[in-house]
């Protein structure tokens, strides 16, 4: 499901240009609520750690707030937000040493026992090691396709490449990831 319809995005952009500071703050709060989960998930997979994802999310929303009043609606609001999110996540990842995806992972469900938790951690550790060895463009494309509600046309718009390139980039990324998962940690 998309975080926000086109009409809701248009109204929100109008509110962001309102002269009243309260209305602008309200528009920002609404935008944060609409995109926070998907932006966090994207940042989590690109940066590889929860704390880094939180920092990238903050950078992203600060950039969105600064640019929202000047947003002209030439692109979809979600496309613009995700472009900023990708850039923030890559910048955060470059600044920090690698942190693990496994950090801060709780029991997968209330009924899960210690074996399930151990298995889940083991799987995550493998995925984490494999994602870490992927190139930025592969990690970004996999992270975007892992989000709910984004079709390939929007992912192409976010990355600024033709739709065909998105599929071939995704396929190469997937092949590389599967090969790394099969071969295990370095």
């Amino acid at each position, binding site marked *: 499901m998309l975080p926000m319809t086109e009409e809701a995005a248009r109204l929100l952009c109008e509110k962001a240009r309102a002269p009243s500071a309260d209305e602008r703050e309200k528009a920002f709060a609404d935008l944060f609520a609409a995109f926070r989960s998907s932006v966090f998930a994207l940042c989590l997979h690109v940066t590889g750690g929860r704390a880094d994802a939180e920092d990238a999310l903050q950078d992203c929303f600060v950039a969105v707030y600064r640019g929202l009043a000047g947003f002209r609606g030439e692109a979809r609001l979600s496309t613009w937000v995700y472009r900023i999110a990708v850039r923030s996540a890559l910048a955060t990842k470059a600044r920090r040493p690698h942190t693990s995806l496994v950090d801060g992972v709780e029991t997968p469900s209330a009924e899960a026992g210690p074996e399930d938790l151990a298995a889940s951690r083991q799987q995550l550790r493998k995925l984490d090691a494999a994602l870490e060895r992927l190139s930025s463009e592969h990690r970004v494309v996999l992270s975007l396709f892992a989000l709910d509600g984004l079709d390939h046309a929007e992912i192409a718009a976010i990355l600024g490449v033709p739709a065909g390139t998105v599929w071939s*980039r995704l396929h190469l990324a997937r092949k590389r990831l599967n090969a790394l998962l099969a071969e295990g940690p370095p």
Partner: protein
Amino acid sequence: MESCESFEEQMEMQLHGALTRDQEDALVAHLARCESCRAFQDLTKGTNTLMAQHASMHIQTLDWDALFARTQAHLRRYTREKLVTAGVVCAALVPMIVLVQGHAVSVVLTSFLACVVALVVLWWRSRAERNRPTSESDAGDLLFAYRRLLEDRLRRTRRTPLVYLAWLLAYFYMAREQLVSTHAWLGFGGMACVFAATFAYYARVRQPQIRKELDALKANTVSK
């Protein structure tokens, strides 16, 4: 006859509903007889599920109110940083104007001129920031646009201290005859301190930061 490679690409398209009916039928028929493609599909589905589950685990346990409050604090810090930049520019300009004009210049005029220049500097900086690769009308490849932006930033951080140095030397040359009184030397010393702080900040903090970011991106951008 299509290869396994092409069917692997179509598996992704199938997962995201981008296949025609005929293509989907051909894929299903291929999967029925190709074990390695079935294994590839299972691994793909498993990885997708794991990534989605992992993200949702974190999303459920996040304290969103605290994160929103931190984002707002981050925003306030950004505004404060802009004010500090304006303050530093003013602090650099006041002694410079006093140095050039001597005692004749009034405090009000000096402060006014300093504020005007500080505003121009802030406007120029925000104009440069608008050219980041997040502009809605930017149609280029995001990763390459980001790399270009970092390279531009690195060039700017190398150039800015040189501009300040040229500025300092120009005023030293213009005001060399007035450099006899203590107040003139204090003014010049103030300018030199601002220059040294700017130079140190760019050389020790900003340039290594940008270079690290650029190296990480360069090392990872091209698919291997």
